[in-house]
C-alpha cells in the first residue's frame, strides 16, 4: 500500500464520476437518475478539493468552486424534484421511458 496522494484522490474522483454516468445511463427511474447526478457532482467537488490541496495550497479557488457547486447542486436538486413531482402528477409515473413526448 502506498502513501495516499493526489493520484489516489483523482482515481476515486474518476471512478465515482463514471459510476454516476453508468447510473445515469441505465436507471429508468427519474429519482435514481437524479441520485446519479449527485454522485457526478460530488466527484467533481472532490477533484477540485484535491487539486487545491496538493497543487495550489496557498490559494482557495478550488475550495470556493466546491462551495458554489454545492449551492448550485442544492438548487438543482430542488428544481429537479419539483419537476419530477409535477411529471408524476400528469403521468402517474416517473419512468423516463414514459416521458418521451418531446420528440419529432
Amino acid at each position, binding site marked *: 500500500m502506498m502513501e495516499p496522494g493526489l493520484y489516489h484522490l483523482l482515481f476515486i474522483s474518476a471512478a465515482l464520476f463514471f459510476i454516476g*454516468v453508468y447510473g*445515469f*445511463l441505465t436507471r429508468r427511474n427519474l429519482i435514481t437518475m437524479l441520485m446519479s447526478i449527485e454522485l457526478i457532482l460530488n466527484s467533481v467537488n472532490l477533484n477540485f478539493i484535491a487539486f487545491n490541496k496538493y497543487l495550489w495550497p496557498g490559494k482557495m479557488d478550488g475550495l470556493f468552486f466546491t462551495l458554489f457547486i454545492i449551492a448550485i447542486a442544492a438548487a438543482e436538486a430542488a428544481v429537479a424534484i419539483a419537476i419530477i413531482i409535477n411529471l408524476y402528477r400528469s403521468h402517474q409515473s416517473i419512468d*423516463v*421511458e414514459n416521458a418521451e413526448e418531446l*420528440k419529432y
Partner: protein
Amino acid sequence: MPNSTAIALIPLLPLAGFLLLGLAGRKYLKNSSGIIGTALLLASTVLALYTAYEYFFVYGRVNGVYQQFVPLEITWLEFSKGVSINISLIIDPISVMMLVVVTFVSLMVHVYSLGYMKGEERFPTYYSFLGLFTFSMLGLVLSGNIFQIYIFWELVGVSSFLLIGYYYDKPSAVAACKKAFIVTRFADLGFLIGILILSYSAGTLDFPTLIQRLTSPGSDEIKTAVTYSFLGISALSWGAMLVFIGGAGKSAMFPLHIWLPDAMEGPTPVSALIHAATMVVAGVYLVARLFPVFALTTPAVLEIIGWVGAVSAIIAAVIACTQTDIKRVLAYSTMSQIGYMMFALGVSSYGGGGESGYTASLFHLFTHAMFKALLFLGAGAVIHFVHSNEMKDMGGLRKYLPITHITFLIACLAIAGIPPFAGFFSKEAILLAAHENNKAIYWIALITSGLTAFYMFRLYFTIFWNKPHVIHGEKHGEGGWAMMLPLVLLAVGAAAAGFIPFGEFVSPDGKPIESKFHLGFSVAPVALGVGGIIAALWLYKKQSDKSTKLAASLGRLYKAAYHKFYIDEIYLFITRKVLFNLVGRPAAWFDRHVVDGLVNLAGNTTQAVSEGIKKVQSGKVQQYAIYFLAGVILLAVLVIYGWK
C-alpha cells in the same frame, strides 16, 4: 389656339360618369343614373362640337393647311432624363372628326338606352360601362403618342368585354365576351411588338416626331432602321405590319373577324355603339394616324392592308347574305364596310394626287357611323318589339313600327349607296379611289356593293314586309321618345351627311383636296345597288319559297357561306387539334413529369432523409446522454491523440 381645358374635359366627363355611377350608382342613383350619364355625355358632345367648329373654322387652318396641335402634354412616367412616357392630346382633322363621331353616336346610344334598357336590374352598371367605353374611345382618338394609344386601346377592349358580357347569366354572352377579348388580345400582342419596333426605330413615342423621323428619307433613324431585317423583311416593315395586325384585330378584319358576330350577344345599343360605329373603326383610325409611315416608308404593307380590306369586304358580304339572325347580318355588314375603309386606305398614297382614298376612307367612316348605328338601333327596336333576333319571327312589321320602318329604310338606302343618301357619296369616293389606283380591288368592291344592297334589302323586306305579323300576347308600341329621337336624328345624319364637303377638311397632309365626282362613273355602282334591291324585292317582298330554292340551287356555296366559310371551325381545328396536341400536350407532359418531377424529387429526398435522421430525436433522455458521452469521448480521443 385650341382650348385645352375644353378638349381635356371631353373624355373626362364620361370618366366622371363612370366613376360616379360605378361607385355609387347601384345604391343611391338607381333611377337617375341614366339621366346623369346622358347629361354628362351631352356636355361632352357640346364641347366636341364646339372644338370641331373652332378647329375647322377658326384657328385650325393656317395658310390653307390644317395644322396639328398638341394642346396638352404631361410627363407621366419619367424613367430618366429624356426617356419618359407622356400623356398628351393631339388635335388634327381626323381626331376632331372622330371626337364628333364618337360623342354623337355615344350620345344617341345613351338616349336610346334610356328606353331600351329600362327596368334592367343593373341599369346603373350599364351606364357606368358606357361611360368607361366612351372615355376610353375618346382617349384613344385624342392620344398624342403611340404608347398612350395602346393604353386606351386596351381600355376600349376591356369595356367592350364588359359590355358584351353584360348579360353574364347567359352562357353564350360569357363565351362571346371571352372570345372577343382573347382574339383582340392576340392581335394586340402584335400591336405591342409593332409599337416597340416603331418607337425603338424612331427613338420616340410621340406621333408627330415619330412620323416625321420615319418618313423623311434621309433621317438617321431611317438609315439605322433599314439595316435591321428579319426573314428578309426590314424591321420597319415588320413593325408596320404588326401594328396593322393590332388594328385588324380590333376592326374585325379577315381572318381576325371571328369575334365580331359573336359580340352581338351584348345589348343592342352596345352593338350600335361599339361594334358598329366606334371601336371597330379604331383600326382604321390607327392606320390613318400612322398613314404617312405606311404610305412613304412601307408601301408594301399598305398594299397588304388594301388586300386584307378587300377580301374582308367581299367575304363578309357573302356571309351576310345567308345569316338569319338580324344582328349577325348587321355584324357582317359592319365588317364588310370596315373592309371598304381599309382598302380605301390601302389604295391611297401620300401626296402626289393619290390621297383621295384616305379622305374617302374617313368620309366612309363618318357616314357609316351614322347609318350603321341607325341600323342597329332600328334592329334594337324590332327586337324590342318581337323579342327575338331571328328573321323567321319577323315580317309585316311596317304597320306596327312606322318610325322604325322609315328610318331603317333610309339607313338601308344609305348603306346600299343610293343617291342622295350619305353612303352614296362616301362609297362613290372609295370606288373612285380604287378605280384610279387598283383595278382588281375596284372590281371586288363593285361586286361587294351589289351584295351589300342585296343583303340589306333582304333584311329590310324580311323584317317589314314578307308575311303578316302575328302578335303574341300583349301589343305594345315602338317604345317612347327616348328610342325614337335617336332614330330620327341618326336618320337625318344618314340622309344628309353626304353633302358635307369632306375633302375640304380631312386629308393626309392637311391640304384640302378637291372632291372628284363623275356622274358617269356612278352609273355602275348605283345600277348594281338597284339590281341588288330588285333581287331582294323579288325574293323576299312576299312570303315564298323562291329564296330556299335559290339557296338549294347554290348548294355548296350557300352552305359554306351559311357556316361563315368554316373559319371558326378552322380556328377550332388549329387551336384544339394542332396547338393542343403538338404544343399543349407535350408542354403539359413536360411540366407534369419533368418540372413537377424535379420538385417532387427535391421534396421526397428531403423527406426521406428527415425520416431517417428524425429517429435520433427520440425523446428518450438517456439516449441523448449516450450520444453525448460517446461524442465527448470521441472528441477527447481525437484531441489527445490526433492533435499532434
